[in-house]
């Protein structure tokens, strides 16, 4: 990131780690540097809360453990958390007015695992309200700006978490991905973003948007750092009955820049009209590098791809309308003043508390679930979801992973799509399928377009195929 936001705190875990073991710095000093970067980058609006005191306190504890030789695997890492994930005693706003005064009563499982691994939690990041959006313009607390060009969006919905890493305000961050909300902002900001297999990471303490789609995953500057964070947060959790009891491999340990013999599929439906030509060319260069590295590259087809967006928006709005029914102003959250009866309290609290995109999705979801339309939309959507998943299962019998663009365009201008919801939804065209099928995906930087804006390359894998997509991503990161 040119100029201002390419600052000294732009560091990978390896460089921090070697400085720590050489005694050149301390966790406290590193945390101070990141806090300065957060302060200096306030205009980007990436953070909703900064935990100055508790971060420094935590850093001192980590320093003591480093001296004693008892530090955890993420000692020296400073992590920002999307404000849809609970950190005990801190606010969790979800970018919404309706939760602006809400304080978490407990740590999300991912947060307690990060703390146990000795990561320092620096603060909470801005996001599209309830993770609904693709540009981080839908926050009740103002939009997040792309560090490279502040008239543009950083992608969404985890725009704050992406910018925190891209602008050197954290070593890594956590986002949530329901339809691309980690991968697309990673692409727009030029960093690495990983959406794990559904069930790989516990959702306990993640405020629900669409429960059968939601996943938590890391942003980082390198593939290895993302792998390290995933290793810490992944695994079965008895508090999330949809978390999978599948063993967690040593993700970072197996990265060796070697891909000989790997079979990579190129799904033709992801390279059709609508894809920006510069992005296509950038991807083709990377695909050539794969071939040169001994990869068997093969064109494949996922015929139901064109139905992904329609299916996705039917099902997620349906799930969202149910999940968001809990915001009624009775037990927590915003309550409208001067309301007459109970029904009026519900209606006024919700109407004043939610922003326009959230209301639009609740309305759509209520419509597709309502009497007379349930079979035509919701049931139909669930059936097509199976067809989309079967596409992937079939293709993964022939290839080990898929390489696609992350987004059809690079970062767009703020305000460009905000009044045209369908256009905004279509920007998720390459990312929603992974959530429909429950498979993992990673976005890695793939050069820049002529305007200097980052391009993202997406690698999709089989269920629990994170080691394979990380391996290919790690190779491409430094190849060429």
């Amino acid at each position, binding site marked *: 990131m040119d100029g201002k936001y390419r600052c000294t705190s732009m560091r990978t875990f390896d460089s921090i780690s070697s400085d720590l073991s050489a005694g050149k710095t301390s966790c406290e000093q590193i945390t101070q540097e990141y806090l300065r970067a957060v302060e200096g980058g306030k205009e980007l609006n990436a953070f909703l809360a900064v935990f100055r005191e508790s971060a420094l306190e935590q850093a001192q504890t980590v320093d003591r453990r480093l001296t004693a030789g008892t530090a955890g695997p993420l000692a020296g890492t400073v992590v920002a958390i999307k404000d849809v994930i609970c950190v005990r005693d801190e606010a969790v706003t979800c970018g919404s007015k309706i939760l602006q*005064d*809400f*304080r978490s*009563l407990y740590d999300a499982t991912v947060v307690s695992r990060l703390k146990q691994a000795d990561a320092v939690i620096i603060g909470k990041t801005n996001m599209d309200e309830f993770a609904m959006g693709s540009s981080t313009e839908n926050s009740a607390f103002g939009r997040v700006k792309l560090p490279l060009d502040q008239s543009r969006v950083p992608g969404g919905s985890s725009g704050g978490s992406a910018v925190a890493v891209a602008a050197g305000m954290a070593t890594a961050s956590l986002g949530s991905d329901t339809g691309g909300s980690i991968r697309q902002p990673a692409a727009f900001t030029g960093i690495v973003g990983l959406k794990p*297999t*559904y*069930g790989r990471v516990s959702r306990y303490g993640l405020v629900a948007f669409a429960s*059968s789609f939601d996943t938590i995953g890391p942003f980082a500057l390198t593939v290895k750092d993302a792998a390290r964070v995933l290793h810490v947060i992944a695994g079965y959790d*008895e508090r999330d*009955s*949809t978390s*999978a009891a599948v063993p967690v491999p040593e993700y970072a340990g197996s990265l060796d820049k070697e891909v000989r013999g790997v079979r990579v599929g190129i799904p033709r439906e992801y390279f059709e009209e609508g894809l920006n030509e510069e992005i296509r060319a950038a991807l083709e260069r990377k695909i050539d590098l794969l071939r040169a590295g001994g990869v068997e590259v093969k064109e494949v087809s996922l015929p*139901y791809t*064109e*139905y992904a*967006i*329609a*299916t996705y*928006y*039917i099902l997620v709005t349906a799930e969202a309308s149910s999940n968001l*029914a809990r915001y*009624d*102003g*009775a*037990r*927590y*959250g*915003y*309550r409208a003043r001067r*309301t007459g*009866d*109970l*029904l009026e*309290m*519900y209606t006024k609290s*919700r*109407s004043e508390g939610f922003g326009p995109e959230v209301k*639009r999705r*609740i*309305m*759509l979801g*209520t*419509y597709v679930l*309502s009497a007379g339309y349930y079979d035509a*939309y919701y*049931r*139909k*959507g*669930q*059936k*097509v*979801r*199976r*067809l989309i*998943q079967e596409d992937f299962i079939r293709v993964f019998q022939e290839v080990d992973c898929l390489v696609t663009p992350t987004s059809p365009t690079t970062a767009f201008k703020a305000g460009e799509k905000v009044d045209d*919801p*369908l256009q905004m*939804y279509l920007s998720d065209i390459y990312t929603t399928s992974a959530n429909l099928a*429950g498979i993992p995906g990673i976005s890695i930087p793939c050069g820049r377009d002529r305007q200097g804006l980052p391009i993202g390359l997406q690698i999709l894998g089989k*269920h629990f195929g994170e080691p394979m997509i990380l391996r290919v991503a790690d190779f491409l990161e430094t190849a060429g």
Partner: protein
Amino acid sequence: MPVTIEDVEHIAKLARLEFSEEEKEKFTHQLNQILTYMAQLNKIDTSAVEPLSHVIELSNVFRPDVVKPGLTQEKALKNAPAKTEKFFKVPKVIGER
């Protein structure tokens, strides 16, 4: 099957939301636009397809039926917009008929 303003009003009522006349018109237009896009799914014959509601293979998850501590009353009430010492406080539910 175009959505009318009346449909929007009905859905809003189900969703416990209310809108100005201007918003209702905007929503009617946008919902129609999005639902028309969604209608492309009708091109697919799904008569022999089972709906998919869960993406990974999972069977029922059981745990021993042992009582564990949950939220205390004090904690549960911590985020309440209005409360008494022990209860959430809401407008009167039972009317005087």
